[in-house]
């Protein structure tokens, strides 16, 4: 059975099935959406079972001609870099869909777009052909545009358009870079692996130009300073489940792209641009954390903390070492789990209180102990508490980066302190102190919320205590990648 194809297109099949159901049949639509994303998740878990951890080569490879005239092929494969992200994607989609069962407006379209979105994201992470990658990359845009624009908050149209234009702007450069690579490879090819093998044939000047083009495309997604301003807006306006996907998966398309495309295919340019990348990284880490600290809106705070956390991911990458790469890839996973849960948790309180103002609460810890517990765990994970997932990835990123860029890594630790400061302040203001009687009617988390949030908390703890759960998959691939740069 072609596992990757099944994983990618199971959601699309579900989406098409949902289209056939009359809109009145809400329960059936919801059931089908959950079922489909669950099926996609379980198929992707089979990937783990069949994955050969010792191998550094591509696994589950599927290859067939698509547009032979231009050597465009339908090539899929997974390695240590992508397999964990694929599972993260199916998991986050599943829990987001479960969480989104509280959506009441235009359910049919909502789940249709959500499942199409999943197909697009999975395709990005599994595609090994640049053309195919680009097609999936663009597919992601459309559902996201509608999901923000229709089901979002007060400024949804503005946010949706901004997101769309921003990303499209990046895609344009991506397209140019892709075509440049295609026309300069002999024989012309879109295949990532073949391009990487022939990387020595690309001249330095050519690499530099193509790197800039691809970088703009990826930087918008990660997002790196100064291409980041779509993020707070889109994250805040998007409905809860969609914010989870935005932060948990979409941002990783950028960092994944850098590691899958830019680094192996353009090694000379990668090395050349390292100092510049390093400076952008530090800005992301420090600037992101400071701006997050100034936010009064809970969701905006979490959104800006993503900029800071993707900075840690970049920090691991610019080390060009096995340790740093391990940290970077693990950071993609842990950030997905942790920030994903944080967005879900913000949604929980917003659904009840209809406000996200940090100063509006107080003493909720006494009234909502379960909620306070989950929020505290994930906040602690996000600020890098050992024993929880965020610590290992951040530590490895720092460890890798410090060897090569001691000063940049040294400055970046400020981000850790500031992150701790704003999360603790949030906990103090929302959960501690005297109980604010205004919220006497609030209820603790219900089953739907628990089912969507608890699995992420369990994984956060599990990866924190047993990082091998992820690192065993990641390590061989990224070690091979690091070898390239020695």
């Amino acid at each position, binding site marked *: 059975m072609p596992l990757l194809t099944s994983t990618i297109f199971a959601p699309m099949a579900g989406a098409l099935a949902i289209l056939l159901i009359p809109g009145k049949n809400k329960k059936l639509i919801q059931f089908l959406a959950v079922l489909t994303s669950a099926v996609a998740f379980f198929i992707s878990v089979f990937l783990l079972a069949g994955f050969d951890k010792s191998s550094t080569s591509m696994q589950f490879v599927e290859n067939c001609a698509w547009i032979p005239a231009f050597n465009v092929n339908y090539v899929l494969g997974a390695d240590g870099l992508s397999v964990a992200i694929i599972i993260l994607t199916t998991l986050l989609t599943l829990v987001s869909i479960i969480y989104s069962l509280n959506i009441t407006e235009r359910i049919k379209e909502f789940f249709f777009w959500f499942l199409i979105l999943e197909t697009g994201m999975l395709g990005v992470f599994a595609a090994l052909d640049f053309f195919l990658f680009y097609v999936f990359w663009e597919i992601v845009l459309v559902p996201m545009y509608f999901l923000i624009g229709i089901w979002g908050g007060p400024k949804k149209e503005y946010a949706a358009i901004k997101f769309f234009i921003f990303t499209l702007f990046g895609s344009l450069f991506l397209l140019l870079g892709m075509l440049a690579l295609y026309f300069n490879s002999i024989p012309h090819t879109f295949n990532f692996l073949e391009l990487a093998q022939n990387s020595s044939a690309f001249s330095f000047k050519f690499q530099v130009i193509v790197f800039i083009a691809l970088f703009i495309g990826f930087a918008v997604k990660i997002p790196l300073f100064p291409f980041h301003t779509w993020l707070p807006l889109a994250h805040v306006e998007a409905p809860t489940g969609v914010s989870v996907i935005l932060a948990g998966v979409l941002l990783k398309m950028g960092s994944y792209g850098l590691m899958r495309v830019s680094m192996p295919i353009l090694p000379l340019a990668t090395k050349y641009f390292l100092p510049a990348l390093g400076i952008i990284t530090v800005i992301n880490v420090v600037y992101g954390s400071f701006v997050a*600290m*100034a936010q009064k809106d809970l969701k905006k705070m979490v959104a800006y903390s993503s900029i800071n956390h993707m900075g840690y991911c970049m920090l691991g990458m610019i080390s060009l070492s096995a340790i740093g790469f391990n940290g970077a890839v693990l950071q993609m996973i842990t950030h997905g789990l942790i920030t994903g849960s944080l967005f879900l948790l913000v949604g929980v309180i917003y659904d009840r209180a209809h406000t996200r103002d940090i100063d509006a609460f107080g003493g909720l810890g006494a009234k909502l102990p379960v909620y306070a517990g989950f929020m505290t765990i994930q906040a602690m994970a996000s600020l890098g508490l*050992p024993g929880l997932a965020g610590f290992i990835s951040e530590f490895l990123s720092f460890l890798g980066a410090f060897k090569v860029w001691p000063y940049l890594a040294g400055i970046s630790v400020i981000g850790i*302190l500031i992150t701790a400061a704003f999360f603790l302040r949030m906990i*103090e203001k929302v959960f501690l102190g005297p109980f604010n009687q205004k919220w006497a009617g609030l209820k603790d988390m219900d089953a739907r919320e628990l089912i969507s949030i*608890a699995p992420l908390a369990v994984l956060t703890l599990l990866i924190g205590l047993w990082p*091998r759960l992820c690192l065993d998959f990641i390590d061989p691939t990224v070690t091979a990648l690091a070898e390239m740069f020695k």
Partner: protein
Amino acid sequence: MLEYIYILPLMGFAAAGLIIAFGRHLPLKGASLAILVSSWAFIHSSGFTVGQYKISMGVYVDSLTLSMLIVVAAVSLMIQIYSVGYMKGDKRFKRYYAYLCLFTASMTTLTITDNMMVFFMGWELVGVCSYLLISFWFEKPEAAYAGKKAFITTKLGDLGFLIGLLLLFSVMDTFKLSEIFSRAQAGFLSIHAATLICILLFAGAIGKSAQMPLFIWLPDAMEGPTPVSALIHAATMVAAGVYMVARLYNLYLLSPLAMEIVAWIGAMTAFLAATMALVAYDIKRVLAFSTISQLGYMMLGLGVGGYYAGMFHLTTHAYFKALLFLGSGSVIHALHTNDLREMGGLMKKMPVTYMTFMAGSLALAGIWPFAGFYSKDEILVWALSHNTWIYLIAAVSAMLTAFYMTRLIVMAFHGKPRNQSKYHHSHESPLVMTLPLVFLAVLALISGWGLNSGRLFEKVLNATVPFLPEMRIHVSHMKIALASTGLALLSIFAGVYLYAVKPEIPEKLKANLSSLFSMLDKRYGFDAFFLGLVKVSDFLGRILSRLDFDFIDQIAIDGWAYLTYKLSAIKAWFDDNIVDGAVDGTGYLTAFCGRIVRLAQTGFVQNYLLFIAAAASFFALIVFYH
């Protein structure tokens, strides 16, 4: 047997999980499953591999480990027993015990690990337990604030610790203690690298062990339940910084400058904190300042080369300071107040508490034969052999210590009760609380003499560091002991005189020297300084946030969009008017020409013939004249 030592922290983690899960709240069963799975994962994880490096969870056990482990285990046990009485009826009793277990487990992890990364994990985890327990009664805003303050202040120091660890790894290529030591001996470290690493790591200890200038968090940490103050903020966690320096003594010995810094920071801390204790009225805060001061002593001891002296004082201090905190807890439990000005005369009502508290105080003041006498003496000897100034600072601090403890005892236990109704309702604490007091009092009495006799402890401890420094000059133990005992007795008499015989004198002093008193009360402005730092970073955050939204987003990005929009409007106008105008104009011109030419098309044959004739004549004329 020793290879199973990892079971110690594991039991703690498991206990913490089980308590949280199987309290009365059965819905949490799912969580318990998760915790069991995690524990299983933890057991089966022999670390992980990244690239060529392997991070493993091994143990490193020597006599230093064991001496620390015994302290942690003994004090933990006493506190757990005592808490049964102290926390009785608290609505979050279950959670309290879960946190305590988590703390003990983390502290044990930190103590026995053979790996600096795992050490750092334990180090951060004890910090978080401290945070959770300080703000345990989180309905009180002060408690919530104090917890946050403690976490962030220690985190500031931990940044240095983290950078130190990163540097250590980038030089040594390993986190394993045994390899670090052997590579340090093999000369992997230049003296500069060693200095830098040691100072950076020490920054972490400055935070965690409440040294100057990061000691501001510890007095506020007293908002937590008193047994927690005894366990975490007196005996074990705050001593972790001292333990860290001792654990890495091999590295510190490589750098005389780092040692000197440790010694001076310790000495300054010991002195400053002792002065601050003089004016505090909160019984727990007096003890907190005293703890800071004593931790400074330990650092001082380590810094001047007294490896055994520092660890010896850590051990004895753990017992008698835990005792003092538990004693103050017993008083607070009886009176429901922390304020010394509301106490007095408790001696008769609470005899067991009084006697044991007395034992602890004498130990702290360094009176023979109590434990503090031996360990403090050891530090003073090393200090004098190293540097007279440091010795003087230490001796003055010791004097101050005896003085403020006398003040505390006189105010709390002697004289007439100042608050009659509170006094009236007070009572001796239950057996479950007094029993740990008695046990710890016995330790406060004998642990110094016992550990010092035959100097066995010194021998086994010194065996863990291969090249310990010798004392620079020989100093007579006897003379030091006499001097310090004399000074201590002197200040005890002074304390008794000032607070029991003539209590009006301190009041007058306070009125006359109000600026000095308020400076001490404000902790020399350290708090204000760090609050300023917080304000500055908040300000920076707000500025950057404005920049992010107003400038980058609204002006740069949306401005660009606006310009594009405007440009397209201009293009539209150009298209409508110029391009389309040109097209239309061409059409119009054609039509116009057509209209003009049409005038000639009259339809009359005569006219056409006339045109032909005229043209023919015209051409004929041209041909003719050419």
